[in-house]
């Protein structure tokens, strides 16, 4: 068969599957059963209405029967009530109790046709009422079952046949009729019945077609439901995957956010680091600039007194000057020398502080005596400037505290010295107080000087800083005093603070930790401190020396200076040019039975330095006192000298008082032995 033949041949629907066919029959049977039951219920209502209608018709048409003036209830009314009720009762009962049963619908068919007969009778055989028969048949066709129509038709035919036999005039109006006349009446009923049979058949075919469609629809629905279930499962799986993807994305987002936060944090840290670096750079640059300025300042500070020293030294050599001028020149040289010494000491102290090598002692200190000592030290200078210097107690103060008297005095000297230096009128007041709550003594140094601008106060304690560059030129100084003083105060458990307004003077407060002062008597005036100071000053008369001293020094100037001081104090002094000569001289004197009581040993000399010489002497069993003379003021130097074999040491520059007291103590130590 070719394609054209295929196109010409009408397509036949594929036979339904056995499953669909079985389901079709099941639905068809169910539909028929439902239709039977539904129609049964319909007829139950219809027959009830018909019964009531028959009663109403009887009451309307023939309520009473008459005989002259006498009347009674018409038999049609009784028939409508009782016979009509009997006709309707049994079918209604079956419709309610046994709906859907074949017997029920056949009884209904019989009852419905008898209802028609009774209604026709009650209405006097009116031709219009006969339409009730055809209407009833049409209603019975609702069952879509031919047998029901057959039953109804048989009832009609039987009614006419029987009445034709026994009461023909009630049906045909005449007493004698053709024996088949009943068939004419029944024929019309059969005619309608045939039509209704065709309707029923079509109805059943339609019901079966609908059942088939429903079965196919159900099958299709099952397929669709299975497909939907599969799709739903796929969607659920897809949704699960999507959720997992979403969770992964959220996790990735979280990681990204965390990474972003870390990056931002790193960026902030970098920015902070950059800022810190910039700040450090600025600070380093500032420090560099400050150090450059400091070096320039130091150069100036050093060159200025050196110029005076050298210049006035030259003038001393000139014989033209008289003794008075020469004495004046010497004082100038001494003052400039002391200034140089102060400068060098400040530099060394700052170096120690910055290197963390500054040490403080913990011993008993009389804060009132420190105050009196400083006042005595600066009293003359204040008087020379025409300003007053007042010292006073600001309440009771412990007579003794535990601190470092040298460093306390050093800090206080700085403050008072500055106050006098920057005050041109008025005066300087130093008040000593005790803050019991902090356990600290406080020296308030107040001046009536120009005051310090606020913008300078914040950096006034930084190294190499003064109020302005012109300060150095006007007042001199290194710019290290306040830095050193604050560092000392903090090392002593206190602090150094400033209160000042430009034009209103300044007040520096030096707090020193007092240590344990329980049970310590309190000072109420400075008189006892001043008395103690005067007593100590009186005891400072230069001692007389009695003993043999070997000075090992390579510098001729120092040889001349030190030998002159010692001889003038009464000592016998021999010289050695270097360490080796010193060792030989010392050993020779010991061997001769005239050992030296003290050897003053310069530590830096040609041929043999002081360290080697001291060690050599100790190595040879030399036991006399050896005092090191060193220009190295660092604390490590002291220990180095001790380690080499020295008993003590003196730092250069050497003052007459310091030298004589040290040598006197060594000689006294020897005498005690």
């Amino acid at each position, binding site marked *: 068969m070719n394609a054209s033949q295929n196109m010409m041949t009408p397509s036949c629907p594929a036979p339904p599957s056995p499953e669909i066919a079985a389901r079709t029959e099941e639905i068809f049977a169910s539909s028929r059963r439902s239709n039977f039951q539904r129609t049964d219920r319909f007829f139950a209502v219809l027959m009830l209405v018909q019964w009531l209608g028959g009663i109403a018709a009887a009451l309307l048409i023939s309520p009473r029967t008459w005989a002259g003036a006498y009347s009674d209830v018409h038999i*049609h009314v009784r028939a409508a009530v009782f016979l009509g009720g009997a006709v309707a*009762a049994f079918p209604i009962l079956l419709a309610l109790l046994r709906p859907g049963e074949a*017997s029920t619908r056949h009884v209904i068919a019989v009852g419905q046709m008898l209802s028609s007969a009774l209604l026709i009778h009650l209405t006097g055989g009116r031709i219009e009422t006969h339409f009730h028969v055809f209407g009833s048949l049409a209603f019975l066709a609702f069952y879509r079952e031919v047998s029901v129509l057959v039953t109804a038709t048989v009832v009609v035919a039987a009614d006419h046949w029987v009445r034709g036999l026994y*009461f023909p005039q009630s049906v045909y109006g005449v007493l004698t009729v053709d024996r088949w006349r009943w068939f004419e009446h029944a024929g019309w009923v059969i005619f309608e019945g045939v039509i209704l049979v065709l309707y029923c058949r079509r109805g059943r075919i339609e019901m079966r077609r609908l059942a088939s469609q429903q079965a196919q629809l159900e099958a299709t629905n099952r397929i669709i439901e299975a497909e939907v279930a599969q799709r739903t499962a796929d969607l659920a799986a897809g949704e699960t995957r999507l959720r997992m993807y979403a969770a992964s994305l959220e996790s990735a987002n979280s990681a990204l956010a965390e990474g972003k936060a870390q990056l931002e944090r790193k960026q902030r840290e970098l920015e902070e680091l950059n800022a810190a670096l910039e700040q450090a750079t600025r600070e380093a640059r500032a420090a560099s600039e400050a150090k450059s300025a400091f070096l320039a300042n130091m150069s100036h500070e050093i060159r200025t007194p050196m110029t005076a020293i050298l210049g006035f030294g030259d003038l001393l050599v000139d014989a033209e000057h008289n003794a008075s001028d020469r004495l004046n020149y010497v004082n100038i040289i001494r003052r400039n020398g002391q200034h140089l010494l102060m400068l060098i000491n400040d530099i060394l102290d700052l170096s120690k502080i910055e290197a963390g090598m500054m040490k403080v002692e913990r011993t008993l200190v009389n804060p009132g005596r420190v105050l009196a000592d400083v006042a005595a030290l600066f009293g003359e200078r204040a008087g020379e400037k025409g300003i007053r210097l007042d010292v006073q107690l600001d309440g009771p103060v412990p007579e003794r505290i535990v601190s470092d008297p040298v460093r306390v005095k050093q800090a206080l000297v700085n403050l008072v010295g500055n106050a006098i230096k920057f005050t041109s009128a008025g005066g300087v007041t130093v008040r000593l107080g005790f803050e019991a709550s902090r356990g600290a003594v406080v020296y308030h140094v107040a001046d009536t000087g120009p005051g310090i601008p606020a913008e300078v106060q914040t950096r006034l304690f930084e190294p190499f800083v003064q109020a302005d560059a012109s300060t150095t030129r006007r007042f001199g100084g290194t710019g290290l005093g306040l830095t050193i003083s604050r560092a000392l105060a903090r090392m002593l458990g206190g602090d150094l603070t400033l209160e000042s307004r430009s034009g209103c003077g300044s007040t520096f407060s030096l707090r020193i930790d007092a240590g344990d002062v329980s049970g310590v008597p309190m000072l109420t005036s400075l008189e006892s401190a001043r008395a103690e100071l005067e007593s100590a000053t009186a005891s400072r008369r230069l001692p007389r020396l009695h003993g043999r001293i070997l000075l090992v020094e390579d510098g001729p100037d120092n040889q001349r200076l030190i030998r002159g001081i010692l001889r003038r104090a009464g000592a016998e002094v021999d010289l050695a040019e270097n360490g080796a000569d010193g060792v030989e001289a010392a050993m020779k004197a010991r061997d001769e039975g005239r050992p030296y009581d003290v050897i003053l040993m310069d530590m830096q000399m040609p041929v043999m330095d002081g360290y080697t010489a001291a060690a050599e002497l100790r190595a040879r069993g030399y036991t006399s006192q050896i005092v090191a003379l060193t220009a190295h003021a660092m604390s490590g130097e002291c220990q180095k000298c001790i380690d080499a074999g020295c008993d003590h040491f003196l730092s250069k520059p050497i003052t007459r008082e310091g030298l004589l007291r040290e040598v006197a103590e060594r000689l006294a130590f020897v005498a005690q032995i």
Partner: protein
Amino acid sequence: MATGAAVWATVLFFGGKRIVEYAARPGSSAAPDMYWPAGSRIAHPADRPALLMFLHPKCPCSRASLSNLERILSFGASRVRCTVVFVCPESVSESWRDSDLVGKCRVIAGLSVMFDDGGAEARRFGATTSGHVLMYDARGRLFFSGGLTPARGHEGDSSGMDAVRALISGATPVSVMTPVFGCPLFEPELAAGLGTGAEE
């Protein structure tokens, strides 16, 4: 089920039999005179046949008789003088003269209506059952006596209708006497005086 059906069928059978028997049972009638009664107040027409129908004003069965009469008159009203005589018992209210049946008669063309209070004319013509029809020729000779319905209260073709139609059209009827189905015109004791018995 079967017992119920049997009981049901039995009840219906006897119930149906009862009403069919009632419908098929004719009323009583006296033998009428063969000529128009001489003492009647009802005038006999000399030019054509006369048809008299005696009716009880409230008889529901007589609607069928009147309907059949109307059907007859619909094709031959001019050939016969038709009079409906309503027989009213004595001492009844005037409303009897305005019953539905009287009203229906008044609207039928070619029909004369008269009232026979006390039933003297009915008795004179020998009519005892509502729906009784008497037909006389132009000379006053009785042609037909009987009812026009096939059963009590039932419309439709009947032997009486066929006979009256034939007489009006000049043909020979199959029967000239038919049973009358309707209510008695008189109460039983009165009817008994006429030698008839009323049903119901």
